[in-house]
């Protein structure tokens, strides 16, 4: 049993903390307040972070990345999220898919895609699974309805595949340069067997971005619709075999195509941890420096109990997240990543709501920071904590 960080992990933590406090936090509220859907996108933050290695953190060293372990990645995500949850996600989104490239692509594909990704500070990645009519059914395909799930069609024409259909709610879609796209190559069999994963560059003919979604939380990065109208993708861009998308995505027999790989669950709970750290630290500072009725807010029992609860849940979450990261590094299979992801939903929402309660509304003015945190935290409801995600984990529990 050892909870200490090694030197490399510690140094990445310090680096992330410094970058977060100097480059992210100062822009957090201002970016959150932009009325549009994160347009124009703030490339400066991406470039600065990329130069420090936060875009390519998860790329293996031999491919020019930093090849950090999961513990480091968890710590860095939390540190960045402590300054701005969505900014942290804008970086870790790339780790998620660079994990996928290293895990699933051929050397030839890595040379074609991983190299340029590493070389270009503005090269962002994305993955398209969800469709207007298929979200949860990709996560938990119904046994009694094999046709359920994504509908995007891919048909072979010689050396090319012709893709037709739509993806919705895709992070980085409007600003990414390369996407992993799950498509049905055989509509006659269930999702697990009939789905193939394609590497689709953003300049693919027949591919375009539709609507850009204006989210109430996680407002820093862009999230959009992808439209495929006879989009032509070379056969060489298939990841793994035809019909192997689900397996390749790391879902395997779990029938899971959402996480991309086991990184997905860790990403959400580590990011939530950063928000909680932000809320706890700011709440304590506020309660220790603000007077009410002539005394410090912290002198009040109700406030002490609220802060106790915030920190208690946050430290419990930190313990769980670190354990999950360690299990990933040790390639230990367990349901803990899923459980920690589910639970981070409950924790990040309760902690930020307590923070808002402590800030209170002065007349008709709510503190912008607490308002942002509760909106960011609500994102977890559909990404990490809805019924389907909880039942999915429950069904995998050992018995």
């Amino acid at each position, binding site marked *: 049993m050892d909870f200490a960080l090694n030197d490399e992990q510690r140094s990445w933590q310090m680096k992330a903390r410094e970058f977060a406090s100097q480059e992210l936090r100062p822009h957090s509220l201002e970016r959150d307040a932009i009325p549009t859907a994160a347009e124009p996108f703030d490339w400066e933050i991406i470039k600065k972070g990329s130069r420090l290695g936060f875009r390519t953190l998860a790329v293996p060293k031999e491919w020019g990345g930093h090849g950090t372990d999961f513990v480091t990645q968890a710590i860095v995500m939390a540190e960045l999220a402590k300054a701005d949850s969505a900014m942290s996600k804008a970086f870790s989104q790339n780790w998620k898919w660079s994990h996928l490239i290293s895990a699933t692509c051929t050397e030839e594909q890595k040379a074609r895609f991983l190299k340029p990704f590493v070389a270009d500070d503005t090269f962002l990645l994305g993955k398209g699974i969800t469709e207007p009519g298929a979200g949860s059914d990709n996560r938990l395909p119904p046994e009694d309805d094999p046709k359920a799930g994504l509908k995007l069609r891919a048909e072979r024409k010689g050396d090319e595949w012709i893709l037709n259909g739509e993806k919705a709610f895709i992070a980085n879609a409007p600003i990414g340069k390369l996407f992993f796209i799950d498509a049905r190559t055989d509509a006659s069999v269930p999702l697990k067997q009939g789905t193939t994963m394609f590497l689709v560059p953003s300049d693919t003919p027949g591919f375009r971005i539709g609507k850009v979604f204006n989210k109430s939380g996680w407002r820093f990065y862009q999230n959009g619709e992808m439209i495929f109208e006879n989009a032509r993708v070379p056969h060489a861009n298939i990841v793994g075999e035809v019909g192997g998308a689900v397996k390749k995505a790391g879902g395997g027999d779990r029938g899971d195509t959402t996480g991309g790989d086991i990184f997905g669950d860790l990403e959400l709970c580590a990011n939530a941890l950063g928000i909680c750290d932000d809320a706890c630290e700011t709440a304590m500072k506020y309660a220790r420096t603000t007077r009410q009725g002539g005394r410090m807010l912290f002198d009040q029992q109700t406030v002490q109990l609220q802060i106790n609860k915030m920190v208690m849940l946050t430290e419990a979450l930190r313990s769980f997240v670190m354990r999950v990261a360690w299990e990933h590094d040790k390639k230990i299979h367990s349901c803990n990543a899923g459980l920690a992801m589910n639970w981070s939903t409950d924790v990040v929402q309760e902690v930020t709501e307590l923070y808002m*309660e402590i800030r209170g509304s002065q007349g008709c003015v709510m503190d912008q920071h607490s308002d942002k945190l509760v909106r960011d935290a609500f994102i977890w409801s559909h990404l990490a904590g809805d019924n389907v995600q909880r039942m999915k984990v429950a069904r995998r529990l050992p018995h």
Partner: protein
Amino acid sequence: GLGGAGADGLTRCIVTEELAAGDADIAAILSETSRLGHLLFDGAASDAQRDAFLLKYLNDDRFHLALAHREAGSDTRLGVNYHRPVANDDRIKATATKTSNGEWIVNGVKTCIPNAPVAALFAVTVSMPGHDRPGVLLVPADTPGVSVIAHKSPWQHGCAGDVILKDCRVPAGNLLGGEAFDLLTGTESAQSQLQAIALGVGRAAHEAAIDYAQLRVQGGRPLIQHQAIATKLADGAIRLTTARGAVWQAAWAADHPEALADRSLSDLPLSAVAQVYTSEAIVKAAKDSAEIFGAMGVMRDMPLQKYIHDARVCAHSGDGNSDLRLRIAEAIAGYRRPADSALALAGE
């Protein structure tokens, strides 16, 4: 009578919920105007004052009312003074001084005033040299010296703004008499409106979720046929039903002081009880409803995220629920704060 409905608090509550189920902001503006109209024209105003303003009020749909009471830095929270003799300093900084010709000259700044940007008539609380108790003056919005700065996005339904009064002259007759100050600044009717808005918001979210759950197919059948969704919808129905019961009971009690007198009602501050329970229940109901919509629940072009925001506004309004719990506890403890306690705090 003259065309007003003259509705009681419970009825206004029911109407406001209906309006809020459509749009919380419009409901807030209309209900604040009707609440103040009731307090003024069925209560505080003299016949002369009624003659002066009632017809305009009834005949002009845009003749909105606002209570200009709150002032910058004012703190009405119990907080650290729970069950302690000291109380908050509630002295009013805005002043009204009488001129030789009997006119009032009003000076002061009021902040976070609901309806301020749309109000045609303000009821302004003032302290008056020579009087030991504060008073309320009726100040038309077009009175020279009155200016309003609207809040861009107030943490409140409807609209709000700061009201600056600079050497405003109003006739002697605009001073409301008797108990007007206590009547208008009492929190119950405002809380009741807020609770009705919360019910409307929660109902809109809940009904949207039911409709969607019947349309959207997942796992081979409509969402509503899944136990997990069924449980969430049931919880929503339970929260709305129990919250509505609490809100209506409080509103009815406010309409029937005699029921409290003859002990057929609890002597708890029912309005505070309903406020805490309802505001927290509605936040949960709105969040559960939005979750059923998946990613669409967080998109700005869908109403779900707005319902959550509107519910949070109710849950973090006024002095907040922690503070209301302390007020309820003082009632449970039967604690009575000495009347002259205000200065004690001022002295701290």
